[in-house]
């Protein structure tokens, strides 16, 4: 190769290397030293990443009509098509619980369900919640009795239902009542644990005869 050719080759190499350095410098960008409080800055206001797998609703929500199912008319459902999916066998659990307002004769005749005590009733409600958790993946969202009942009846993103829309143990306010006619109290500890409390025979919460469901993991939650 001639001397001139060598010079061109070296110059070309230098130019090429310089171009790489310039490109790197350009891609590096300016270090942002702006004052935090300066107004009008930042183009980063764009929405952050959103993963629809978690808690996000369906991308294109469809209007759910009132759903008439064998388990009652659901005014609405949060599932895209308004479908309610009863968990097989779960509804029968409620047949065991003692019903409010039944006379002693009826109770002795076994017309108030198979359970013999309020304790067993509370455990039955606990089983219902557990059935829901297994099907849905988490305990129902909420704390108030009527909203928990709505979730158990199918008002949840998957339309999972473990409760019928109407039942003798559900009062006109949509609350699930114990055998003495007092609405149960639900206490959400975590996504996996929810305790159930019955006011007991005196119908007053937070007294000595209250009946509380067993929840092994309760102690793990700081309160």
């Amino acid at each position: 190769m001639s001397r001139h050719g060598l010079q061109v080759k070296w110059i070309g190499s230098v130019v090429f290397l310089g171009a790489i350095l310039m490109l790197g410098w350009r891609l590096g960008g300016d270090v942002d030293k702006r004052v935090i409080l300066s107004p009008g800055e930042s183009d980063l206001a764009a929405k952050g990443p959103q993963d629809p797998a978690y808690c996000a609703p369906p991308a294109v929500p469809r209007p759910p009509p009132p759903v008439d199912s064998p388990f009652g008319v659901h005014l609405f459902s949060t599932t895209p098509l308004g479908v309610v999916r009863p968990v097989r066998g779960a509804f029968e659990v409620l047949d065991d619980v003692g019903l409010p307002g039944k006379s002693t004769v009826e109770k002795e005749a076994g017309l108030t369900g198979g359970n013999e005590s309020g304790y067993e009733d509370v455990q039955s409600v606990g089983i219902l919640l557990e059935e829901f958790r297994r099907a849905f993946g988490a305990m129902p969202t909420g704390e108030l009795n009527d909203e928990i009942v709505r979730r158990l009846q199918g008002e949840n993103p998957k339309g999972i239902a473990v409760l019928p829309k109407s039942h003798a143990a559900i009062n006109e306010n949509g609350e699930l009542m114990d055998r003495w006619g007092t609405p149960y109290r639900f206490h959400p500890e975590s996504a996996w644990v929810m305790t159930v409390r019955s006011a007991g025979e005196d119908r007053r919460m937070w007294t000595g005869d209250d009946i509380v469901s067993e929840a092994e993991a309760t102690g793990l939650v700081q309160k």
Partner: protein
Amino acid sequence: MKTKKHQDHFDTRRNFLCRSACASLGVTGVVNTLAHLRLVQSAVAQSAPTDYKAIICLFLYGGNDANNMLVPLNGVARTNYDSARPAGHPIHIPVSGTNQALPLTAPAGGFGQDAVATQFGVHYAMSNVRQMFNSGDLGFVANVGTLVEPINRTEYVAVPRVKPLPPQLFSHSDQQLQWQSSLPDRPFQSGWGGRAADLLNALANPASSVSMNISIAGQNSYQVGQTVTQYSVATTGVVGLAGYNSGANTYGNAANYGVTPPSYLGNDAGRTLEALDKITKLTRMQLGESNSHYQHHLEEGYNEVMKRARDNEAIVGTALGASTTAIDGAFTGAFGAGVTQPDVANQLKMVARLIQGRASLGNNRQIFFVSMGGFDTHQNQPGDHNNLMNQLDKSLKGFKDAIEAIDPTLWDDTLLFTNSDFARTLQPNGNETGSGTDHGWGGHQIVMGGPVIGQRIYGSFPDLARATGQDVDSNRGRWIPTVAVDQYASVVAKWFMSSGSNYLGGLTNADVSTIFPNLGRFQSVGSIPSNLGFVNFAV
């Protein structure tokens, strides 16, 4: 002259394409490396900050009834408060009379919440909080809570609901986790304190001797990070490794690690530890390795963990070696002589001691976590919440006085902020004396410290109307938050990652997004909304 082989190697089109592809990859790597080198250079070029800053997260576990911590005294908010908690009800806090709310002095221009109330008071057990509020050392941020996106009542009750909600609302552990991670819409991986430490540690703490994240309340989610490990300290001091004999010097053996043979206790823990140490030493000797290397990675890992634990024990032990007279005196002054102080006070006392010994820890930026439990007041709220507010009030006062007793200028380097699972229903759950309140959502939080622009109520105070306004789909008074946890926490984080009004060298708004990936859904990442500017960066 080129050989045939040489010619083929360079001149075929296939080889040309192959080499071009390789070259392009090489160029990409070079450019990428250069870009990173520039960032590294810019970071290194900036010297570590010379100022010290500490943030303290005080978590109120169980869900604090913020509706009775900060109370409206007039306006529509008061009317609605009286409607839900009527006069005579044990949970009612009156404007005047027995157990009345302690009125706050409004700053010039008022509290800025005129649409709902112009006068506010604090719980009757919070006289110190009132004093610190009025003196400008403490402020409130109203109606803060977990959010995936901004949402209002109309959107909340819409059928079907389009806006996403934080999963498992009203559930203790889920909401605690979401407060501490600030990422309610994704599985937990780290807390925002942990992410902040990961980002800042190398930059701000080049001479660090111990973890940037210290918890006095045990393991927590807030300080979980990828690289910075949280270090737990008990209220009584360092939790030493069981089995080593500390002798006369509390942290003697830890400090002498690697210099003198450790001494072991004569109990089972000591004998077990001694046996394990000898086994690892035996394998090392058999393999002819030097003293500083173990043949097996597990042994090496074990050795490193043990060494780090003992190093930390020694370093933190040294930090705690200074006199505690001034700190103890501050807390005794707040609680009174002879009064048993609650656990949260002892935790904050330990934080003050660690701040006092900050030179030994070697950190210019330090994150502390403390907590207080018992706020799940479903029953007996009047008495229980009164005790909690009393303990919180005096603990905060003791902490402020302790920091100022160490060094008055240190108060300007300290920022304490509260978190809680949620607030509680405005409407009580019964009318008996022992009644309480149930799980809510948005609640009011306390911010305190020298950099806090106190005597203000930030955010947007709800009108406390039920079944309308900010209430969710019940009539119990559970407020949809108007300030996201991300927004609230990001103000603290921005102060923490700054020196004066500028970010520490190399940090940008993109780093704020790294700590709070969802912040951009609520506000411009680079700015602070006018109703959330509770920090004075110039202090």
